[in-house]
């Protein structure tokens, strides 16, 4: 750690990891097959580990995770989107992991406050990205149903992707370069998967995204209620 950590940036990245981790955890007991359930749980645990480090640098991790109200969370709206069908989960993961991989690779190359964490996490995230890409290819270029559902998921979540490249205070990365690389990578995967790259601007008056400012979508409140109810009902509960 060579410079002071920006709490704003730590919260943004930490909340992304925490919220997506919880969403993926919701698959436990419900995944299509046991092997995939373990894969999703592993990804969730990787993200939870990142969240713990990041939130601990911003304050007390339990207080931040369990005692904040919805408007105090700074995660992207993308990661709070419900699991939907398996295709939605995979599309969300493809969009996010591609972004997170580029972000951590960028941060690891700096000597900024997140370099240590990013250097460690970038290996985990490379696997998340690969997992999502592999599934996107198989669902998109597989059966007719798979193709249809994967296309629907990619299109539905497209409007949440512009928000990823908004500047975050204290996050010193080349966002414009990241956005170009992200678009190039996601386009290539969707093409290979015989899917149509969704059209329309990803940022603009009607596109989604103010999660970094604390504005969240409808399903997020319900998710938080579930995530926080144990700690709120039994403060300080431990194993």
């Amino acid at each position, binding site marked *: 750690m060579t410079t002071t950590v920006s709490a704003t940036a730590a919260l943004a990245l930490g909340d992304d990891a925490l919220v997506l981790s919880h969403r993926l955890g919701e698959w436990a007991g419900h*995944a299509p097959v046991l*092997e995939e359930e373990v894969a999703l749980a592993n990804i969730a645990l990787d993200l939870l580990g990142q969240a713990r480090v990041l939130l601990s640098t911003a304050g007390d991790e339990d207080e931040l995770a369990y005692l904040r109200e919805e408007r105090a969370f700074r995660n992207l709206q993308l990661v709070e989107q419900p699991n939907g069908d398996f295709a939605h989960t995979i599309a969300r993961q493809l969009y996010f992991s591609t972004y997170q991989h580029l972000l951590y690779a960028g941060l690891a190359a700096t000597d900024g406050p997140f370099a240590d964490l990013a250097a460690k996490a970038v290996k985990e995230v490379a696997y998340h990205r690969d997992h999502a890409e592999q599934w996107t290819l198989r669902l998109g270029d597989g059966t007719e149903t798979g193709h249809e559902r994967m296309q629907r998921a990619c299109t539905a979540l497209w409007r949440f992707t512009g928000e990823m490249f908004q500047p975050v205070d204290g996050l010193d990365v080349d966002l414009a370069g990241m956005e170009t690389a992200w678009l190039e990578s996601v386009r290539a995967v969707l093409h290979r998967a015989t899917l149509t790259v969704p059209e329309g601007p990803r940022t603009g008056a009607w596109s989604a995204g103010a999660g970094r400012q604390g504005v969240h979508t409808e399903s997020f409140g319900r998710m938080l209620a579930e995530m926080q109810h144990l700690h709120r009902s039994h403060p300080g509960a431990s194993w």
Partner: protein
Amino acid sequence: MTNTDWPLWEVFVRSRRGLSHTHAGSLHAPDAEFALRNARDLYTRRGEGVSIWVVPSSAITASSPDEKDPFFEPAADKPYRHPTFYEIPEGVKHL
């Protein structure tokens, strides 16, 4: 959880360089690429391995329990079959 038509794969993990791959277990996967990834998630998450093989279970020919006697119970009175008369040089590991 529902059953799928995914084929069964046998997983072999090499725990360290210099050792051979050993059978770790089996899993279901739609294809070899995913079998490898699932194997990574199921069998190597705690740093157990440096290399993984996956083999379709259907490609394995196994001995039958009925053949147990002719296969595995050779006469025990032929000591020359057992390499017990050699001295193992010092410093040779994994022998």
